[in-house]
């Protein structure tokens, strides 16, 4: 085994030496700006570990022959803090920024980079957004320096409603979302897209509750039950999703299916447990049991941290950077940004493309269902013995949504 690794390493070195790329052996500093304290600390910590862990994996072998170094800075989930964190990251020499939790901080980074890059030619910084899903970021507010690796709210809803339209049991849908931009958008796109595909489906409720304020969701569950809904669509994440599903389990609301965005994020799997089996669906660009290189990463990550590696977009980020460096023959963000535009690469969810018009990754999406782990899908979430089992895969063109982006290119 050891010999095999050495042989592979040797051949990689030989192969890359043949290319004699300018960037070979360079260290690329990547600034990670996301919450490490407060409400989302658990999610942020998990994602920082994911970045560090996958950076190590890519440092062993990547097509560009570079070394990745992650600088993690706590942005406290606030746009204000994000701006100063970005400043500090740039002072430390980072020319690539990654962020994902919350579209507010993402927008703050985009604004800051527009100005910084215009004023400091030769010191440009690129932003890879791995999870902020507000469609505006690649539409009315799009920026040349921003690349989104997650699928946005409208893309996920497109795939989700495409799946739901073929289910005859879906007749009455209840929407429950967090009362801020993300929740509003989930509710808006759900209504629009469902109307188009299944005009007979009724919306029997449209609740918006304050973000991370509700401790007891049982009143909402009573309301859902009273409405006679058969399906619930929710973009809730974190404790808001965990407590919602837990309350549904407690009340024995077992004839209602939940269609979620963030079922696999820290906390929710534990809250769902066996009681929610077969009733919770998720739309995402990944699931825990994907084959290939990601599988090894997910397994090793779990072994090392006893935690789940659920942010697949981190893998996208490193693959795209490595291939972008190779293509641009440089790590200079200006050249790399140009190389990213329209770039296609193979990832865990099929061939993906960084769309040139709006810098939104076009990728395949999975609909999966919370079921007992085992057989072909052995990796469970949060050691619950249960996992999201994929039911359907949608090719990138199915979930693709049009863009209104009028990008200003430098």
């Amino acid at each position: 085994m050891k010999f095999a690794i050495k042989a592979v390493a040797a051949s990689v070195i030989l192969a890359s030496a043949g290319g004699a790329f300018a960037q070979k052996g360079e260290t690329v500093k990547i600034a990670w700006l996301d919450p490490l304290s407060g409400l989302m600390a658990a999610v942020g910590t998990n994602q920082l570990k994911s970045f560090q862990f996958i950076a190590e994996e890519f440092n062993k072998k990547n097509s560009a022959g570079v070394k990745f170094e992650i600088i993690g800075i706590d942005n406290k989930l606030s746009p204000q803090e994000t701006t100063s964190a970005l400043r500090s990251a740039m002072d430390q020499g980072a020319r690539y920024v990654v962020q994902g939790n919350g579209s507010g901080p993402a927008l703050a980074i985009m604004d800051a980079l527009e100005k910084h890059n215009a004023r400091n030619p030769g010191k440009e910084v690129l932003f890879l957004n791995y999870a902020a899903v507000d469609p505006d970021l690649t539409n009315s507010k799009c920026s040349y320096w921003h690349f989104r690796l997650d699928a946005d709210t409208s893309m996920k809803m497109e795939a989700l409603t495409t799946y739901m339209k073929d289910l005859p049991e879906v007749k009455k849908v209840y929407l429950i979302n967090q009362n801020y931009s993300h929740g509003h958008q989930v509710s808006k796109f759900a209504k629009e897209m469902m109307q188009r595909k299944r005009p007979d489906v009724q919306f029997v409720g449209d609740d918006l509750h304050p973000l991370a304020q509700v401790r007891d969701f049982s009143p909402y569950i009573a309301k859902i039950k009273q409405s006679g809904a058969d399906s619930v669509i929710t973009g809730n994440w974190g404790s808001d999703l965990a407590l919602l599903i837990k309350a549904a389990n407690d009340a024995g609301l077992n004839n209602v299916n939940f269609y979620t965005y963030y079922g696999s994020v820290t906390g929710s799997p534990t809250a769902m447990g066996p009681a929610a089996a077969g009733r919770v669906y998720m739309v995402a660009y990944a699931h825990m049991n994907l084959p290939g290189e990601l599988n090894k990463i997910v397994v090793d990550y779990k072994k090392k941290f006893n935690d789940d590696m659920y942010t697949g977009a981190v893998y996208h980020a490193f693959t795209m950077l490595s291939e972008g460096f190779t293509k641009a023959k440089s790590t200079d963000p200006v050249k790399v940004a140009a190389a990213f535009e329209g770039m296609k690469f193979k990832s865990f969810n099929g061939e993906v493309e960084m769309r040139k018009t709006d810098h939104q990754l076009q990728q395949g999406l999975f609909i999966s269902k919370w079921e007992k782990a085992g057989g072909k899908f052995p990796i469970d979430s949060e050691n619950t013995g249960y996992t999201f089992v994929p039911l359907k895969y949608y090719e990138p063109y199915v979930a693709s949504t049009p863009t209104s982006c009028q990008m200003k290119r430098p």
Partner: protein
Amino acid sequence: MNPEFFVISLLNGVSYGLLLFMLSSGLTLIFSMMGVLNFAHTSFYMLGAYFAFTISGVVGFWPALVLAPLVVFVLGAAFERYCLRRVHKFGHVPELLVTFGLSYLILEVVQLVWGRSTVPYGLPEQLQGPLFSLYGTQFPKSRSFVMLVAMLMLVSVWLLLTRTRIGLVIQAALKYPDMVEALGHNVPRVFMLVFGGGAALAGLAGVIGGNTYVTEPAMAGSVGSIIFVVVVVGGMGSLAGAFLASLLIGLVQTFAVALDYSLIHVFKAVGVAVTDQTFGYPLLKLTISQVAPILPYLFLVLILIFRPKGLLGTRED
């Protein structure tokens, strides 16, 4: 609102209210006895949940139900003895600040020991599943258990304070500490026991609340503000007031969720048409159900304006 929804919501409201009461009773007790507003109170709640998680993994849930509050009691008493007592002579503000600091310290320690993620703290078999079914909606045993423990706690605290010698000494030490000391009682020790006892009550709430809801590092922060509302609305230092306020807030929050009415409906009723062009439309279209979780804070403001001593409070200052 049909009768089915009414009964279910009533039960939900009462059980949530009783959990709030368990949480706030210790705070009320400490405040009324010692005049210390303990900012770290919900941290003891969190500790209770985490200790119960660890202990129940070793010896099972039922011993943990007793042991976890005991451990929290010891920690609370030690904090009073070695920290709070030292700053007591500097007045109220340092006391407040030291408990504030403690809450940060506990949060960090919890994150270091148990990590930042949710821990899988579940109830034992006997307490899982529904107790009874009403109109097809199940009422879980866990919630009934919360109600039972809260009631037992209320009764025993009340009996302890009014029917026993210890209670007598505690009450006397509150009003006439010098006199009680002159009679040969150790007043500082009484205070230490009271603080530990208050912390243990929060710990007990954590043992039960931790698995009814979710055990995670943010759990202390998320209930922190609401229990202050309970204590202020109920009347600073009044156990009965805290009980009343908890139930009231539990019920108000639960029933408000069902009301999808906004100011637009009010305007419509008096014949004024509101469109999305109207000034302040985003505010006007907010429904009562959307603001349900923040209604207690509105309630708090109203109470402070119209009845500053709270519903059943006796302190005028």
